[in-house]
């Protein structure tokens, strides 16, 4: 998990032209110390964001700022807007359930996810150059708040807009798959395959994550039932008395001990497996956003090309008739050509970036999942061995009991 990385030299950050030759450039961030601020409905959690870097654009080797969830959202939205084609790292969801919002577990999960989010940005060779990132990591709270509120206008894409884009892209994909209509879409078969892959992957992952969560619950339930069972067995032992009673008491005590182990394992499973799985789902959803952006860019390009064609026809008409509208039309035509070039460049950038990103993404996910699997297996082995050890320690006494 990237969270464990502090000073990384892998994955990027080596291309900065102005980096001092004495030390490899690094930018590492940590999100810590969640604190509840405010009261009642207005209450929220604030986090300490600590930046350690030797990037020349940054003010000094270490900086600490206070940020809240909406600040992270701002950063994500800005990056999404500016770096089209790049898979922007996902953010944990906004929680709507009131009483859950301030539970220790939720806060810890969110903190971990936010930490991962910022670090992924910091490690991305392009995103780490972002000015918005610098603002986020360094600006004082007032500047941050101003920046946040300014962006409700032009740049801030409302979540509902984003969802609409998702839905559009999704329905267009299914429409194409079903052969319904012929929208303005790329006809790149490889890209089609990728789109389908992303959409189906999300479904599979969501299913897997659901089962992972259920497994966490089962651990908790088993733990609880063992605790209750242990208690009842202890009481039974008190009734029986003599050596048998003692054996019962010890069995009960072991049960209670194992109950704690199970609760611990449930937590470990939640943090080190289920959460990474959720993160995977979010990442795929973020990619869907990029797919939507690409579709937009493509559409723009096509529309502009069509507009230009029409303009050409007009222009030729004006040329022939030597109309006074000609110069204006020429001017417009030139503008359109410039725009069209821009649009084409934008689109092609997105395509190029996406191709790189998909490779990076897959590699990252293999690593992330590999680690998650490792943690899962490690935890399960630890639990099972712990259970075996605990029960085994009772055997000598039980042997003695049988022979008595």
């Amino acid at each position, binding site marked *: *998990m990237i969270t*464990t*990385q502090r000073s*990384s030299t*892998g994955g990027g950050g080596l291309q900065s032209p102005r980096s001092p030759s004495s030390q490899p450039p690094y930018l590492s961030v940590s999100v810590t110390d969640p604190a509840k601020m405010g009261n009642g409905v207005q209450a929220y959690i604030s986090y300490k964001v600590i930046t350690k870097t030797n990037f020349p654009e940054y003010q000094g080797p270490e900086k600490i700022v206070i940020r809240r969830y909406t600040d992270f959202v701002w950063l994500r939205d800005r990056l999404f807007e500016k770096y089209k084609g790049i898979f922007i790292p996902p953010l944990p969801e906004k929680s709507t359930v009131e009483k859950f919002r301030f539970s220790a577990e939720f806060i810890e999960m969110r903190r971990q996810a936010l930490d991962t989010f910022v670090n992924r940005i910091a490690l991305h060779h392009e995103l780490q150059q972002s000015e918005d990132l610098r603002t986020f990591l360094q600006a004082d709270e007032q500047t941050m708040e101003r920046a946040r509120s300014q962006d409700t206008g032009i740049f801030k894409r409302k979540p509902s807009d984003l969802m609409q884009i998702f839905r559009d892209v999704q329905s267009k994909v299914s429409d194409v798959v079903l052969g319904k209509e012929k929208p303005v879409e790329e006809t790149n078969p490889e890209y089609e*395959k990728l789109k389908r*892959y992303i959409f*189906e*992957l999300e479904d*599979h*992952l969501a*299913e*897997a994550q*659901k*089962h992972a969560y*259920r*497994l966490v*619950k*089962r*651990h908790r*339930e*088993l733990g609880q*039932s063992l605790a*209750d*069972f242990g208690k*009842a*067995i202890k*009481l*039974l032992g008190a*009734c*029986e008395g003599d050596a*048998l009673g003692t*054996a*019962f008491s010890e*069995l009960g005590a072991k049960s209670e001990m194992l109950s704690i182990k199970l609760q611990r394992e449930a937590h470990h499973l939640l943090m080190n497996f289920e959460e990474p799985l959720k993160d995977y789902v979010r990442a795929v959803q973020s990619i869907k956003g990029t797919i939507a952006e690409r579709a937009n860019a493509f559409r723009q390009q096509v529309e502009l090309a069509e507009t230009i064609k029409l303009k050409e026809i007009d222009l030729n008409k004006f040329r022939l008739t030597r109309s006074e509208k000609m110069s204006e039309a020429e001017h417009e035509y030139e503008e359109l050509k410039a725009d069209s070039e821009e649009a084409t460049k934008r689109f092609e950038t997105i395509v190029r970036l996406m191709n790189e990103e998909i490779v990076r993404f*897959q*590699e990252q*996910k293999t*690593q992330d*999942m*590999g*680690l998650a*699997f*490792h943690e*899962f*297996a*490690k935890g*399960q*082995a630890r639990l*099972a*061995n712990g*259970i*075996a050890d605990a*029960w*085994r320690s*009772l*055997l000598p006494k*039980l042997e003695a*009991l*049988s022979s008595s």
Partner: protein
Amino acid sequence: MKGSENQKDRISSSKEESEEEILFHLDDSSKSFSHYRSAMSTLSDDSDHPLATPAESDPLLSPPSVQNPNSRIDPLTYADVNFMPPNRDNQSQNPSEESEIVLPYLKITVSSPQKEVESSNSIVPGGNTFVTYLITTKTNMAEFGGPQFTVRRRFKDVVTLSDRLIEAYRGFFIPPRPEKSVVESQVMQKHEFVEQRRNALEKYLQRLAEHPIIRQSDELRVFLQVQGKLPLLPTAAVTSRMLDGATRLSKQLLGDDSDGGSVRIHPQDVVRPAKSRWDFLRIMKEMNQAMSNDWGGTKPSIDEEDTGFLQNKERLLNLEKQLTSASKQAELFVKAQQDMAETMGEFGLAFIKLTKFENEQAVLDTQTKRAADMKNLATTAIRASRLYRELNSHTVKHLDTLHDHMGLILGVHTAFSDRSSALLTVQTITTELDSLYAQAEKLDTSSSKTYGGDKSKTLKLGEVREAIRVTEDAKSCATREYERIKENNRTEIERLDRERKADFKNMLKGFVLNQVGLSEKIGKEWGKIAEETSGYANHGG
């Protein structure tokens, strides 16, 4: 689940392990293990379940002496994963085995429920239907005159048997019979209910067979052997027999056979609770007394002097409470283990699906690698799920001991109330005797004062003296009966404690061995995967 059909096709076309082919059939299986009792019975069908080990014979059904051909059990580890507690008096042994000391063996099984119609003069068209069960007995006891025989009985017959045994074996801890549970029969599926009842009947009859005294009873023998209609009369209601016996008994006791044909009843029969008492008044007295008592409450009129007994009673009461609680918690624990097994299996399956998807869609090598990692995790999860299931089926067996003894200890109530009512009988007779003596004395002194004596008074005195003689007899019978019941109580408590402790020792050992063995295996499986994926931990992103 959607996509499963496609998956099946893809399985056959790709070179996958056969293990996964079995795994996918799980999609079609929809057995729910939600109800504990059905979990108990469906566990016996577990061998059909695709997530269960295919080659294993079900330990719940097969006799314990059969060796389990389970190749996965490592003989060097705590191999007693299939540890079965040795039965207390070796009833599980095959009767054909030669042994020097032949212990009595009586094994009863209940099977093949069948619907039958009450072929009687019922006014209702279509008649009543009821279920009969095949009762199979295997024994080496001479009283039965044969090693194996069967009979068909219905639930009503079992109720009769139970009532008769309670009546005949006062002071003994008679295992309680299965309940009539009308409500459940409406709620549950018919076949589920019948299966549950069959299971309960088998347990009950087997417990009777294990009781050293009851197994020799005529009532049980008749129940198990006599073909056709059960020749045991159900116990009539107290009131009806009261009226029946009350008028007859006095004449019978005094030798009056003029009613014709009734059997001479001995004084010892008098000592039955006033159902068959000759004095109607005594019936009323006893009933009043019994109603104001409850066997757990304070009864100042019955002087139970035996403090040892009282201590035992309290201890057993407490034990009953704790056993009930422990049994319930054990049930919940077993359910939680079952749920864990199931969810682990479903989890594994979900990842198998993801693996297949990733493999089919793979464009980059890294995807294929991820798919391979995922597959290892998933198959291990499925293996772990199987192991959990196995663990649980043994746990059920072991912890069921708690439930069994909870049932046995309930028999204590009838035994103790037998004792109370016997004591009540003695005391009532004593009180009566005292009043008879007082009566006699009064008649005696008054008659001697009258000149010449009053002929009627002399006659009356004679009658009273006769009544005293009879009542003295009755008292000594009642006292003997009380002492007998007390002794039965004592031996039964001893037996119950002894057997329970022995069973619990075995239970603890079996349970723990089982947990150790299977947890070790599960730990090993996961350890392998942890090892294989340890590279990811060192890489660290």
